């Protein structure tokens, strides 16, 4: 074990002392901070804009304002639905129910300062300002009915901002329906009343009678969180394997090109050397991913602490993460998957003399890794799919798919059998990869001489 530790220590320190490691470590939190700040800044700094509608009456203008009011009502309802899962005080719930929880409006209607587009041009181009509730501002957009009455023309200096036009289009569609209903002798709110009377389709989670008595049948975030946690774990494993390719390849190439194997192999056993190297790369990627995870967790805690009762949003995920029936098989799959893929990449690296040779291996490796990614995607969408059932018995997919299937309570015998197959496959790969590694590292077999590799792997005294 001491030798494994010393190999691990040297490799680990070698990696973490490199600038690239710290850049990678800092990059994700930095991008998260920059991205989050940018999104918040963009939302907060988005200007409030004035628009006007040129029409004799205020039919179109009222329809557009009505559409904005409906959007606000929808946003308020979504906020109330989210708050229903949070531990808020009765006062906070009451305030949320009675108040407007929608974000502030970004478009405010002002009276049209002129009637024709020629006269409105200076206002739309910012040469003249219009007065409104937020003071004097340029006119952002104006709606003018076309002369034939078939079009509501939208004029603006910035046609890339499409939100106002989209709202107006929805408003005109709603207005047309209301007029049609009215002409048919039906009330303007006829369709809304019909919709309101439709049967609601509510989701229920089937449980045992005893569980249902205590937990009810309502579908909550606690029901969905295990799927998200398992999905996250499977993706985390994939990402980890994806990111170790270059570490394992380059690390082994460095040793091969530095002609260091003979020195090492007179000091440590080959198995100790491989174990130390594999652990070191595992620790490097774990350091990165755990750091990123802790940062994301800290950021989530901070974000939820800023919202009253927000901490309760995280608790179902934490509970799912602490659930032994998910996390134990998940971790076993994770470790076996890492050993399987790690040994494959390390063995291939031992056959390469140069980075160019390693690069020729990267494409097939990427393809090998994209297959589980597709499987993860399908399993996340439909974990009961027969193809996922079949694929979960294929060892290259098992580590990912077993994790994803755990929240859906697969039969115990399947879990045990799949883990056993995975363990046997990992052992077989370990044995084979050790042979390849010895052929490459000790006997100098190269990727361009696969026949020689096999000969050296299975020669009687290959060791």
């Amino acid at each position, binding site marked *: 074990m001491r*030798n494994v530790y*010393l*190999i691990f220590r*040297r490799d680990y320190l*070698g990696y973490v*002392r*490199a600038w690239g490691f710290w850049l990678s470590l800092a990059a994700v939190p930095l991008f998260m901070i920059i991205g989050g700040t940018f999104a918040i800044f963009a939302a907060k700094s988005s200007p409030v804009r004035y628009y006007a509608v040129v029409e004799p009456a205020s039919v179109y203008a009222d329809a557009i304002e009505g559409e904005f009011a409906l959007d606000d009502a929808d946003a308020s309802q979504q906020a109330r639905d989210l708050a229903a899962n949070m531990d808020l005080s009765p006062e906070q719930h009451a305030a949320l129910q009675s108040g407007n929880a929608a974000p502030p409006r970004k478009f405010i209607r002002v009276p049209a300062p002129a009637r024709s587009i020629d006269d409105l041009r200076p206002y739309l181009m910012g040469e003249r300002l219009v007065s409104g509730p937020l003071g004097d501002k340029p006119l952002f957009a104006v709606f003018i009915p076309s002369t034939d009455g078939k079009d509501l023309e939208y004029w603006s200096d910035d046609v890339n901002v499409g939100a106002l036009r989209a709202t107006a289009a929805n408003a005109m569609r709603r207005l047309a329906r209301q007029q049609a209903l009215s002409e048919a002798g039906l009330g303007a709110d006829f369709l809304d009343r019909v919709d309101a009377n439709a049967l609601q389709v509510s989701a229920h989670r089937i449980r045992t009678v005893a569980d249902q008595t205590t937990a009810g049948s309502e579908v909550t975030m606690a029901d969905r969180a295990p799927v998200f946690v398992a999905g996250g774990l499977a993706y985390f494993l994939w990402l980890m394997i994806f990111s170790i390719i270059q570490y394992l390849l380059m690390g082994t190439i*460095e*040793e091969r090109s*530095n*002609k*260091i*194997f*003979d*020195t*090492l*192999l*007179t*000091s*440590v*056993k080959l198995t100790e050397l491989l174990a130390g190297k594999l652990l070191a790369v595992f620790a490097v990627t774990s350091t990165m991913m755990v750091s990123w995870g802790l940062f994301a967790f800290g950021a989530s805690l901070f974000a939820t602490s800023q919202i009253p009762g927000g901490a309760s949003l995280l608790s179902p995920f934490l509970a799912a993460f602490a659930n032994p029936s998910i996390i134990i098989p998940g971790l076993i799959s994770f470790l076996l998957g890492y050993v399987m893929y790690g040994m494959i990449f390390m063995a291939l690296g031992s056959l390469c003399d140069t980075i160019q040779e390693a690069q020729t291996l990267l494409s097939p490796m990427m393809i090998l890794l994209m297959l589980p990614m597709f499987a993860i995607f399908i399993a996340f969408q439909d974990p009961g799919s027969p193809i996922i059932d079949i694929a979960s018995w294929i060892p290259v997919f098992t580590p990912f798919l077993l994790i994803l299937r755990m929240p859906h309570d697969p039969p115990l015998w399947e879990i045990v059998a799949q883990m056993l197959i995975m363990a046997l496959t990992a052992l077989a790969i370990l044995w084979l990869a050790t042979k390849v590694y010895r052929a490459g590292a*000790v*006997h100098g077999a190269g990727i361009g001489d696969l026949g020689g590799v096999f*000969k050296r792997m299975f020669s*009687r*005294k*290959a*060791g």
Partner: protein
Amino acid sequence: MRMPPLVMTHATKRFGAFTAVSDLSLEVPEGEIIGFLGPNGAGKSTSLRMALGVMQPDSGSVSLFGKPPEIATLKRVGFLPEERGLYKKMTPRSSIEHFARLKGLSAQVARARANDLLDTAGLGEFKATRISKLSKGMAQKVQILSTLAHQPDFLILDEPFSGLDPVNQQVLEDLIRAEHARGATILFSTHVMEHAERLCDRIVMMARGRKVFDGTLDEAFGSLGRGARISVAEGFDLTTALEPKGFEAHRAPEKGPGEAWRIALPRGTDAQDALRAAIDAGAPIVSFAPEEARLRDVFVSLVGEADAAALTESETGEAA
């Protein structure tokens, strides 16, 4: 009874149809300096890798301190491979420390030993410099020090002088003598016979994978017999000319005016007799000298001129 550091018995190693080492038997007694000599491709490195357990012999056996080569036994061995290799991003101190710890030293002792060795070798100011920034000679010194840091009982050095300038070759010779004085047994391979002449108690000569000589320097020179060197104008065949007079002449590798020949002196004759015979045969003599025995000549006499030419090529390649 203490077991010899290395015993190889009828060890053979083949790579496909090529036999790299054939039926090698060799014993390295404790406390000796042994030179393992032969041209490139003679099977020296393969033999040493088998001795260390890096490669397994196809037949025959190897024992280190009385046991098959295994990591526990190898902790008593320091090995300098022919193909030098260090982690280029490490510093000399951390590199020596790392390899010493792999050989069983504690962190504190390994660090202290690394500092001492680097100071003694004149590399004290480069302790914390990345190896990639050191000269090739300096890096090679660091690797040699890595081999010595755990004060092994048995040092196996594969072509240790290769790549070193004459000054550092002398430094390494002194280092080998110092290790020997400390009590270490030393086996080193080389294709430069002069190092062996200066350092070794015993030599083992290899050619084409086979051992051709195993004995002391005195025995080596004794096997050669007495001789003389005669250089003649180019194109003159001294072998044919001297054969009727009872002298055997072989081409010698020395360069100089004319072509050098070594004349073996039969019992009861001396160098003057050989000179006289050459003059009588009408040889266009350029120079003449009674022979001062050299290991190279022993090798030539053992393996013949074809294999001796390979040795000359090795030396020429090294010089280049």
